[in-house]
């Protein structure tokens, strides 16, 4: 007689930087109300439906893989979330933006309206989170809002980057280039679906300001 496998899994959670910040602020903002699941470190290329030992071993390489510890940096966790979709789904909802690259001169603006394909009405309710990686180059505002607008998964590259990034939530965004005096600069804008997950990025090039000089100007001695 064998023992039954106890199927409840117990895991210890750690607070993220954001969680610690809200806990310290103590204005009832630290209130966990929902959960999400992710498979960040899984590469489905390891899933092998042609495994010679059969179905039980298709995912053996993934299932036996040790999982790395949780990080306190919320920007590096739950990047790839699991999503509930109808059975028979052949395509995963994809977040799209019309332009993958944009070039702007100083003070020029452009409107970006992300959309979700493969899932009707996807992200219409809660919209998208847009993260502009460098506020020195451009500004971003949500021109059309969404419910409970907030950053879902802000993504920053490092501490200094975090200080310069802008995160907004909505369904339509306006990006305005700032004046750059030294050189052209390329930055990334990331759009994340707040309902279906998924992400799309846009590369923004901000051109430096060309200062006109007089053609016949001569150095005075």
């Amino acid at each position: 007689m064998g023992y039954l496998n106890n199927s409840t899994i117990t895991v210890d959670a750690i607070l993220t930087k954001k969680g610690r910040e809200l806990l310290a602020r103590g204005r009832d903002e630290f209130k966990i109300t929902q959960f999400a699941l992710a498979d960040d470190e899984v590469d489905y290329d390891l899933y092998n439906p042609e495994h010679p030992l059969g179905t039980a071993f298709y995912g053996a390489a993934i299932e036996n893989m040790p999982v790395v510890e949780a990080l306190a940096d919320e920007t590096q966790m739950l990047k790839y979330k699991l999503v509930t979709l109808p059975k028979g789904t052949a395509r995963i909802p994809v977040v799209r933006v019309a332009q993958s690259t944009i070039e702007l001169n100083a003070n020029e603006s452009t409107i970006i309206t992300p959309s979700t394909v493969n899932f009707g009405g996807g992200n219409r309710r809660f919209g998208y989170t847009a993260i502009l990686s460098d506020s020195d180059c451009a500004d971003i505002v949500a021109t059309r809002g969404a419910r409970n607008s907030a950053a879902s998964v802000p993504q920053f590259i490092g501490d200094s980057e975090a200080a310069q990034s802008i995160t907004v939530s909505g369904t339509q965004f306006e990006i305005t280039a700032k004046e750059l005096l030294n050189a052209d600069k390329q930055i990334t804008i990331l759009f994340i679906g707040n309902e279906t997950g998924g992400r799309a990025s846009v590369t923004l090039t901000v051109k430096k300001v060309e200062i006109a000089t007089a053609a016949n100007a001569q150095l005075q001695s």
Partner: protein
Amino acid sequence: MAIYNRAISRRGPVAFRRRRPVSATSQVESLARSLANQIIREREQAKARQRLGRIFTTFDPTDDVLPNNIETVTRGLFFGNTGSLTTMFTSSNLTATQKTYFQEIFSTGDPASNTNANSELSMAYGHFNGSGSKDLTGNLNNDTPSRAIYKQYAQLLLAPNDKKFTINGTDTNEIYVLNFNRARIREKLDPGNFELTLAQLSGSAGGGINAALVPNAAHTGSNVKVSGTGQFIQIIDDSSLASGGSIAEGGLVYNLISGSIDEGTSIHNSSSPVYYGLLYPQHGVAILNGEQLNKDISNGGVNFNSVTGSGVQGDNAVKLFTSLNASDALTPAGMNGGIQARSSEQVKSTYYFVRVKNAEYNYSNNPSFVTGSLGELYFNTFTNDPQVYITTVGLYNQRRELLATAKLSQPLLKNYTREALIKVKLDF
């Protein structure tokens, strides 16, 4: 799906049942039942539809969240969750003046020569009248380090007008102090799991077992030695006694008495144990009666023969260090020497029950789950039988800000035939 199915009437077997006209009441009931079932069905379908295209699931505060669970967590007191400190080192990094007040005790090595040394506790000697130490600053008011130590701990642990430590009803002028590092004790020392093993010292002229060795005033430095008789005493707190423990000015306090926690708690001569001092778990401080430790082993002491002359630097704290450090070599197999102790802390936890139903979370936004730019599934078989692996649980607030994360030890397979219950514990 729930079915509204209230029994309306009990009927006899079909073969003997006489066909009766259907009454208006039963028709209404039947219609009502069918309508109720339809409403339930539609609600559940709507709920299922609502879940589609979602990456978040809201917790039911009643069923899924178990807040404010208090658990007492105990750990070994010393570095690396070790419950006993048998080999100790003093620090050469302390200044000469600091050493007149206390000795800092390290595990692994002297921090001056070993970068892996870990600070565990401090040991000090206090005398009510300031004996056994010398004021190196030239102060003539007898405000010596030993007097400062005594008064410091009296101030911290005793009632405002109580100036002396009272051990088993008798005031004592001499105390030895073990002060465990706050980071080690966390919230408090764990009463019932505290033991000191002290080796008998050689003592000195005027009461020591090597009476001819050195006079009392010279019982310092290299003259402080283990007796060589192999004898030792063991001291525990009296929390195992019904009468043990009280709440005083210094919080919870226990008597330190003769006994052992090796192979279960036992008090030596339980009807009349030897009283050695007081344990203040919340302060992480043990006060030992120096007068008792000065006695020879037949009277329950360990021959400390503390230097008690005035204007003499006695380095008495080193005697406690020497005695504790040497005791492990004297104890028989199955017993520990040195210090055995645990920390105790109450942890408030909230449990979140993450329930993943069979129809939920069977697809992934992972870029390796799809191929091409149109979101097509990487494997055709995933269309009707998707297989995903859960590795991370994220806990969010209403604004979808990630407040806490938990990782599973191994990826957990999820598909339409599997449900998962993950209990996430968040400590505060």
